[in-house]
């Protein structure tokens, strides 16, 4: 029982991070109708930049995270302007090709510049675990979970209560109609992509607090996001959150009770099951079949 509670707590921490990153993917898909293959690389950049800002430039941890979010969001704007805007409204096969190209560029340039060594972000948190109700949690994990859930709530209010957020939701629902009522769809797309990129980067930075960082972590991050949005339903806000938590818990349980070798496989098994039995995901908003 004790062990199960411990596993669940660890799973929810990792799951919160997955939710955050997958939220970015699902927003970009819902608003722009683009599968962002480069999402994993933006996730990786968030972690790696946080490492460089803290370890190499000595910037305090929180400021370093904030700074890497800004950098990745700006990079997202550059990507949107150069690679995605010219092909807006193209079939999905075309836009995915463009994001695949971007992902190849970002991943490999990062690999060349920084080398493939795994690194650890210098942690500002104490080592002694906090004991909450018999469950031991490292302060770094508590921090990651608190930030993840706070930001998820923040995103919710941002989408509901701000002008930009409402414009994004309008574009999400109906592109033509939102254009008709005077929403600048181009700017909304630009901001949406930057916003999604920043969410990926924050997910990466938080994962970097509880695990190591390397330029190849992006591919793995992308797979997690794919699994989460497939389980939750692509383009669904609630789906991304519950899909992420579900995957996090399923993975720690697999690692704890079966074998850590198969930890990464459980997500794919879940995806196949969901596709066979619940074809529009747990919270899917549109038919996914042809």
């Amino acid at each position, binding site marked *: 029982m004790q062990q199960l509670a411990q596993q669940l707590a660890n799973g929810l921490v990792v799951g919160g991070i997955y939710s955050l990153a997958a939220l970015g993917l699902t927003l970009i898909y819902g608003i722009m109708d683009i599968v962002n293959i480069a999402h994993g690389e933006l996730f990786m950049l968030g972690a790696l930049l946080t490492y460089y800002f803290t370890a190499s430039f000595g910037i305090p941890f929180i400021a370093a995270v904030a700074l890497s979010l800004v950098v990745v969001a700006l990079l997202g704007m550059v990507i949107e302007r150069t690679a995605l805007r010219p092909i807006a409204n193209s079939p999905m096969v075309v836009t995915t090709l463009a994001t695949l*190209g971007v992902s190849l560029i970002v991943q490999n340039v990062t690999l*060349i510049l920084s080398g493939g060594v795994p690194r650890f972000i210098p942690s500002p948190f104490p080592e002694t675990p906090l004991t909450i109700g018999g469950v031991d949690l490292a302060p770094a994990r508590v921090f990651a979970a608190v930030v993840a859930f706070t930001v998820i709530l923040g995103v919710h209010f941002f989408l509901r209560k701000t002008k930009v957020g409402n414009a994004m939701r309008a574009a999400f629902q109906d592109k033509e109609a939102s254009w008709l009522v005077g929403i600048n769809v181009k700017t909304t797309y630009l901001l949406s992509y930057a916003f999604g990129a920043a969410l990926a980067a924050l997910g990466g930075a938080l994962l970097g607090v509880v695990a190591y960082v390397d330029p190849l972590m992006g591919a793995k991050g992308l797979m997690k996001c794919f699994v989460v949005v497939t389980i939750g339903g692509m383009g669904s806000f609630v789906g991304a959150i519950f899909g992420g938590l579900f995957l996090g818990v399923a993975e720690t349980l697999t690692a704890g009770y079966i074998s850590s070798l198969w930890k990464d496989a459980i997500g794919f098994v879940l995806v196949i099951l969901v596709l066979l039995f619940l074809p529009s995901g747990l919270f899917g908003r549109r038919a996914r079949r042809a």
Partner: protein
Amino acid sequence: MKPRSAKRQWFVLALGVAAVAFGLPRVLGPYDLHIVTLAFINAIMALSLNFTLGYVGQPNFGQAMLFGVGAYTSGLLSVRLGVPFAVSILSAGMMGLVFAAVFGPIVLRLRDAYFCMVTIALAQTFMLVANNLISFTGGPMGLPGIPFGSLFGRPLGPEGFFLVSLALLLLAMLVTYRLEKSVVGRAWIGMRDSETLARSVGVNTYLYAVIAYIVGGFFGGVAGGLTAHFTSVIDPKVFMFEISSMAVVGTVLGGSGTVWGPVVGALLVTLLPEYLRLAAMWRLPIFGLFLVIVVVLMPRGLVPTVVDLFARRADRTGPGRPTAARAPADTVVPAAADSASGVKGGR
């Protein structure tokens, strides 16, 4: 197309093939022959992806799954059982076909975003399985000692392997060409332009998409099997995302949905970095850049764009024939009418 000019085209093509088959091994040194053989194998891989990516128009970014299945089939059969080369390559293709026939009907219930994600995830799952089933696959250490192989009782030298790869590449091109001209090909192009329209006139788009995936599975397996014999050692990296990406880059660069495009693209992608002395680590980012540039500026790819350029020039000088590398949308209707009324093999 006039029959006479068509005949002449085939003649020129045969001459070209003969020149390549008998000329290149004599002109090229051993290193260059190695690179060109590799380029041919990559071209087979690009053509195998071309069926779903180019003709059906679905973002298949997981072709490495079928490539890897072929590679492990050839590797395991020849290392563990000592199966002859020809049987090994054929089994690689058949195993690719079988896996495609099992997974195709599942993944093709999905389109666009979901199809893209699931094809990538499947290839990753296969890599994980190859990594973890150590007693069967050799695990992360890989499967060494795959023989170069022999054919007709004689060991295949580098030249023999070159000829085998060329022959299989020609087979892949021929199959692509025949299918493109058949009812199947017109159904593909129809659903690429508008799947809803194709379905509304009675085309069973699901069936045709699965066919594309399965044919691609065969040639993906063949490319994997050839690679296993050619490099003599394989490991779970045959399922890597980079393998799928390289096939995508080659196909799109040359021109997806054509017979020559993927071949030209794969040759360029393999040969150019070799002869420009490009450091290995800079290849992928530069291909990524090419991919973005081609998608944004030249969405049909090199071959159709260049062909059109020449055709337009020819049109200006004399009476030309209409050229359309991509079939216009209205070709959907005859293809659909054929299959709806049960007419077979219309041409």
